[in-house]
């Protein structure tokens, strides 16, 4: 399943300085596996130590937040677009 991947500026260095690329997978988790196999170290930019999606990484499937879908198990279809974007956040 080929999907379009958009990577925010701050993690583009993890995928060879590309903004957009194609990757394969039938779920978000498989997509991350594919990206990790081609760009070792990519996973560390989007996952925490347990391998789950990082709390402060935003992942969108066609502009829908995957937290409100099935997270890493969200299914992908041919031609989908997936975006990865570290959150801007802070606090007292």
């Amino acid at each position, binding site marked *: 399943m080929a999907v379009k991947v958009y990577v925010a500026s701050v993690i583009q260095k993890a995928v060879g300085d590309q903004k957009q690329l194609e990757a394969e997978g039938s779920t978000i988790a498989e997509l991350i596996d594919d990206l990790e196999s081609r760009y070792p170290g990519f996973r560390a930019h989007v996952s925490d130590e347990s391998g789950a999606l990082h709390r402060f990484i935003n992942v969108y499937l066609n502009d829908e937040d995957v937290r409100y879908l099935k997270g890493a198990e969200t299914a992908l279809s041919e031609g989908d677009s997936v975006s990865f*974007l570290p959150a*801007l*956040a802070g*606090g007292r």
Partner: protein
Amino acid sequence: MTTIPRSLAEALIAHAREELPNEACGLVHELPGGGLEPHRVTNVARSPYRYEMDGLEQMRLEEAREARGERLFAIYHSHVATEGRPSPTDVRMAFFPPGAVDSEPMYPEALYVLVSLAQEPPPVRAFRIRRGGEVAEEPVEVAEGR
């Protein structure tokens, strides 16, 4: 020293007040001609103690910057009752993964601007957050006019 127009300082202060009791947050873009344009971003944390920018709005603004040749000038937020300087959490969150202070911060070129409502009139202060988690204040001069 960074110079910002009074209209920008007032726009950030107005946003901070409107968002009370919660923290306000947003981005300031520098236009190719040098002008500065504030963009409010929804604080999805909706909290007086925390902010987290709406990711889709953040992504749209990044796309707009690229399409129009703009630069990210500043990342701003308000502190509703504490001093206007980056908190330890603000510093941790300037890195990704959070707290990875031995790497470059996510946006090394951007100023971190704080509006504190703990004082009247609210001060607008600017900081650089550097590798190692070091915070350096950048004096802000507010210029008259737009």
